[in-house]
């Protein structure tokens, strides 16, 4: 995962409340075999409406989304975070998030920023024509108009984001311990690491298609 220390740029000045994961990515997109490319299906029903914020050229490719209360409620699909990441969103600012969505957001390098409703209202106004900056170092959201809102994040998750450590990355950092364990297994339970030959059966090994 790419480290995120700050996210800066245009923001979709949306502010809509109770956006469930079905709005973020409709169910018919779940049959996909990849997590990339879901950006095309993101907010499909919203984008079907004329004048929507996502098709406004002023905000094209914005890395920040400003939304209302209870963002990401509904089904637990990780596809919602995959879709946002795929459309280039790296931070979502809202007064509250569903637990499952914020967990999925972290796993996919998206910062869920919780700010009070007044701050979110103010940012929706400013973001119409000004950039917004979310900074994980100072834990602030700032604008060129000297707005400065502080937010909080679970320290462990903040560290994961700033060092680009997803759960897999974190475990990979324990490579020495894992390798040591594997060494002990090779000694005491050698049949685990070296499976018997199976020339007699039809298994396609490395490199064969």
């Amino acid at each position: 995962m790419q480290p995120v220390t700050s996210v800066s740029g245009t923001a979709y000045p949306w502010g809509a409340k109770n956006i469930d994961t079905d709005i973020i990515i409709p169910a018919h997109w779940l049959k996909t075999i990849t997590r990339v490319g879901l950006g095309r299906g993101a907010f499909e029903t919203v984008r079907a409406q004329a004048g929507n914020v996502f098709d406004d050229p002023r905000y094209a490719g914005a890395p920040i989304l400003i939304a209302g209360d209870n963002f990401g409620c509904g089904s637990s699909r990780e596809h919602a975070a995959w879709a946002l990441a795929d459309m280039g969103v790296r931070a979502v600012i809202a007064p509250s998030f569903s637990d499952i969505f914020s967990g999925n957001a972290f796993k996919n390098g998206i910062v869920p920023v919780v700010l009070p409703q007044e701050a979110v209202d103010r940012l929706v106004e400013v973001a119409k024509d000004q950039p917004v900056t979310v900074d994980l170092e100072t834990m602030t959201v700032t604008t060129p108009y000297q707005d400065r809102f502080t937010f909080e994040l679970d320290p462990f998750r903040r560290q994961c984001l700033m060092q680009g450590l997803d759960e897999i990355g974190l475990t990979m950092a324990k490579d020495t311990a894992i390798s040591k364990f594997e060494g002990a297994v090779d000694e005491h339970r050698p049949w685990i690491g070296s499976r018997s030959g199976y020339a007699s059966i039809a298994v396609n090994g490395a490199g064969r298609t």
Partner: protein
Amino acid sequence: MASRPQTLYEKIWTAHVVERRDDGTCLIYIDRHLVHEVTSPQAFEGLRVAGRRVRRPELTLAVPDHNLPTTPRVDAAGRLLPIADPESAQQLDALRRNTAEFGVDYIDATAAEQGIVHVVGPELGFTLPGTTLVCGDSHTSTHGALGALAFGIGTSEVEHVLATQTLLLSQSKTMEIRVDGTLGFGVSPKDVILAIMGRVGAAGGTGHVFEYTGEVVRGMSIEGRMTLANMSIEGGARSGLVAPDETTFAYLKGRPMAPQGEAWDKAVAWWRSLASDSGATYDKVVRLDATDIAPSLTWGTSPEDVVPITGVVPEPDSFADPAKRAAAQRSLDYMGLTPGTAMQDVAVQHVFIGSCTNSRIEDLRAAAAVADGRRVADGVRAMVVPGSGLVKRQAEAEGLDRVFVSAGFEWREPGCSMCLAMNPDKVPAGERCASTSNRNFVGRQGPGARTHLVSPAMAAAAAVTGRLADVRDLMGAKL
């Protein structure tokens, strides 16, 4: 170091701790990983995007099963037949490409070894006692029959295991399920696990790992133990274990991926040490007397909705818990059943013999014994789907296919088939199926489908009588 008596679960857990964190969660090493086409594409995709490789490709084995149609895969000339549903075809193709790209062993749909992951793992000796084994599928608990700590995981965890060969886990509680006594005439392992579900309830095992013990379990074949372990998840437990014993070793010896020679002897010595110590304690204990278990089946839409075949559709008011009462009413509406109806008076239109619960050779033998010399009743569609190509081949060598086909059953290619409505084998809305699978959930076998979970012999009895029937009557008639 003098240690207190330990259970089988604790011993396997302890042997796999890479690192213990302050909050008690442990980084657990995963010895074996099974992969199929549905829950793996995004995991491989994640590795690709992050530029990661599979840490130990040789500990992973991939095989397609869920989406695969159970119709012939090649034509008479040996040419591959296309798969009609483009999305299924795409997922199957992705598995083939991903395993090739990441160097993971892959069994193709056209190979004799192909089958349902939970049938393939044990029969190839990929599954071994005392291992930790995972798969992106909840019925991974099946492998616990061989004494493997086996459980289902989600797509993010599949990726985690591929990349690190570990998982961060917290230890579960343990529940001993002890079945003593002797099984009655016509009573199979499936009836035992249905009786257990009726007793423990669909959420009774939440947070626990089951260990099946007692003389009935000890007397069961590995196939029978797999039927028990398979449905542990239906009781809310993520895994179910049976301690490895002589039956286990005899089953595994000589399997292609099992250890051989000196490694085999060393392995057996370790496996013997895994059984729960006398004096080890469990967080909960449930005891059943096998003598009380009759051939059983489900009447509702939860695996805990179990009655003996001699029973009747229950009255919702007979349940003390108001939530259960309401659920029972909803189930009966969905199932199209009236309280008080004798289960044996309920007609079926479909019979499915297959799934990772009951598609192994013994299951097919039990069903064939009932089907032999009889005919599938008019208006019933009955299919037999062997769990793997090897099971199919074995059954054909024993002539079971001819028994089924001449009785009017369909004899199909291996796969998950009618267990879940993800491939072309489905039960139409409003129609009723006697099924040897493990889930009778709303819509599981197709939108509006009505499922009764039964043993293979009971399924065959339903096929030849056209209704839910007591297999003992048919077996008696032939004696």
